[in-house]
């Protein structure tokens, strides 16, 4: 992967399969495409590892629907729905191994 892909923020993130992290159902996974939102929020989400096409899996939702727990880069991260909305992903289906 060439380093020219890095940092480009105007990639088409609204392709036919793109959706946001919030749309991910429990048990499903996807790869991060882009992160939107205000600068500080974006930086936080990127720094927590939601970048470079990382694989994110939706683990569970809280009993009242919010926040949502995800698994990314080997650890568990919980986000409120409105933050999850800022992360667009390419859904993969459940537990792919290839």
């Amino acid at each position, binding site marked *: *992967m060439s*380093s020219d*892909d890095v940092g480009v923020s105007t990639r088409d993130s609204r392709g036919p399969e793109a959706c946001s992290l919030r749309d991910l159902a429990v048990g499903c996974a996807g790869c991060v495409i882009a992160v939107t939102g205000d600068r500080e929020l974006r930086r936080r989400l990127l720094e927590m590892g939601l970048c470079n096409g990382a694989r994110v899996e939706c683990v569970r939702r809280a009993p009242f629907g919010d*926040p949502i727990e995800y698994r990314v880069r080997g650890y568990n*991260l*919980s986000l409120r729905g409105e933050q999850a909305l800022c992360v667009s992903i390419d859904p993969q289906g459940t537990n792919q191994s290839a």
Partner: protein
Amino acid sequence: MPTLAAPSSTLVVALAGNPNSGKSTLFNALTGLRQKVANYPGVTVEKKTGRCQIDTDRFAEIIDLPGTYSLISRSPDELIAMEVLRGLRPDTPAPDVVVAVVDASNLQRNLYLVSQLIELGRPMVIALTMLDLAEPRGQWISPEELSKKLGVAVIPVSAHLKRGLDDLKRAIQMAKPAPMPDWPIPNAMHDELVTVGGGLAILEEGNRDGYGFSPTHANRLDRYKALAERLLIGDRAADIGPLSRQEPVASLLAHAASRLQQLGIDPMQADVEAHYKWIESLFGGTGLQTAQPPGLQTHASGGRLNYQPKATTFSDSLDHVFLHKFWGLGVFAAVMGAIFISIFFLADPLMGATESVIGWLGAQIGRLLPAEGPLHDLWTDGIVAGVGGVVVFVPQIAMLFLFLSILEDSGYLARAAFLMDKILAKVGLNGKAFIPLLSGFACAIPGIMATRVMENRRERLATIFVLPFMSCSARLPVYALLIGTFFATFSAAARGGILFSMYALGILAAAATALVFKRSNKGTPRTPFIMEMPAYRLPRVGNVLRQVWLNTKQFLVKAGTTIFCLSIILWAMAYYPRLGEERLEKVASQSRATIDFYKFQGLARPADLAGTGLEPPGAMKHNGETIRQWEDQVRQEEAAEAVASAQLRHSIAGRLGHFIEPAIQPLGYDWKMGIGLIGSFAAREVFVSTMAITYGAGSEDDTTDLSTSMTEDRYPDGSKVWTPLVAVSLLVWFSIAMQCMSTIAVVRRETGGWKWPIIQLVYMNGLAYVVCLAIFQFGRMI
């Protein structure tokens, strides 16, 4: 290998790492009890330092930096960490060595911070923790391999078992900076950095001092490029901020930014992604993958590593229950219930015991003082009572922090926040506010201190602000007195209902106030909720106890002094000015006359006999001696009460009560209640005893006398002073108003100034005034 500095000098070592990475445990293991906790001047971030012996005649000063995920975000914790690491703080020496604590079970994200630390160019050592957790999670790594790839020593440590500490100490002494990797940034950005770097070079030619970057950057161009990158991504820290504004750098930066923007490149994003790309490349090679246990499925396509744990870990299984829609909430309710009940009920006997001990001690020392007079009273009622008033909180605080530390250490706290976040977010708070708010029902003080678990400053402030609305246990005696006296005719259920409404009112007021806080911050973006869910682990006893000790000590020292001073002042207000001897005699004889009157009538009020062990005249055997004993005893008691009452009315507090009467009359209160309100400033439950003294109505333990006095009290025009409406008005006052000076002292301590406690005081009492006014006036019309 040469050591870093002269062997006898003290090394300054900074511990950096993610939250939950085991950093604090390592710090404790290295420094033992030789720790100091203070505040960084100007902010409410804790500064933890300690001393450690790293060699036979060599010591290290260890700075435990706040746990951070990054060095460049805006929270106070991250700013402090960054400033200390760069040596920008005058109060803290620049570290000679940085020990990066890396959680092996969470490698990629932990290495992000490491990548930023590498950029600082300081001698570095990596302490690898939680290796025992790494394997089940499918993230095994060999420390040797990591060390080779990073170019610095990687020491596995098990802080709670004290393994690896000696290796770590040796490595610290031989630390060198990590070689700077070639961060895979976009070529276009790379070109811009070279350009800006050139401008910086020109600037430095004219500046002898350089920019404070470590001189170990072998290549000067590297140094300028690194600096240029800091500036381009928006880092404006104190040491480099001015550079960004000077020419030619300023215009070079502006041009670079706009050119990159046209290409669709965001430098900040590119920077983060480049760091993670580098991290991913560490895993792309053979070394790390072959070290994995069988059964792990990974893909390493194009340098990406996607973790899929081979089996659910113990943590995952626990979470399956603890975060379950139904069972999870059940467990949560059980845990919270247990905590609450313990603090509410267990604390009481402990507090009583503490008070007895203090009282006993005070009496022993009091014997050395003159038996009567101001010095004796100052000692007994002023100082001893004041100290007692502070120390009495220790059992509750210790207990709450015991629970809190266990919850935090075990990892359950994050789960509790996860479950409660939705509800609390509705009023602009945060899931982590739940336990502090719950503790507020026992006592606001430990609750306010418990808000330390909330990292977000704004939400923490909002939580502290509304916490006193949670009806604390001190209000209970007041509620009991008022409801018991004026709603005695109501059924038990109805009375319980009124009690419950007072609690509900508090919660309502808290929610409304929190919403006001939320709305007033509308301009600024809503603070996000981004929280890591750490793996469950057994809380470490040493850690927990240390937390309890440190927090209790902080309370005693900081808040304790304020509370103590305020209680002396309040005591003086109720003590001075003194009535003259003549006046006291007059009051006493008047009181005796009243007793004789009752005796003549053959009547005796039941309260007169309480504690005397004697029976009323009518039922007594006609033994002259016994009757006289009884008379004398009752006379003495009554006279003492009358004297105390007169004294109180004559004092500053009493006069203040009269003084504020016009202001509180529209709420239905008279000057006696005014005195009570002033007295309750020391502590809400003092209201009951102050009322008892004012009415000259017997000891605090038995309020039947007080109740009677209250119901019989009349204004000069014959109308009753106390009506059920007045009682309701007073109940609501106690529910809403902020009266506890100890709370104010703690709020001042936790918010770092008088601004917020004063705002809180004015707001809550103002609100109480308006609401009680409305209730009383409206009630009168019906």
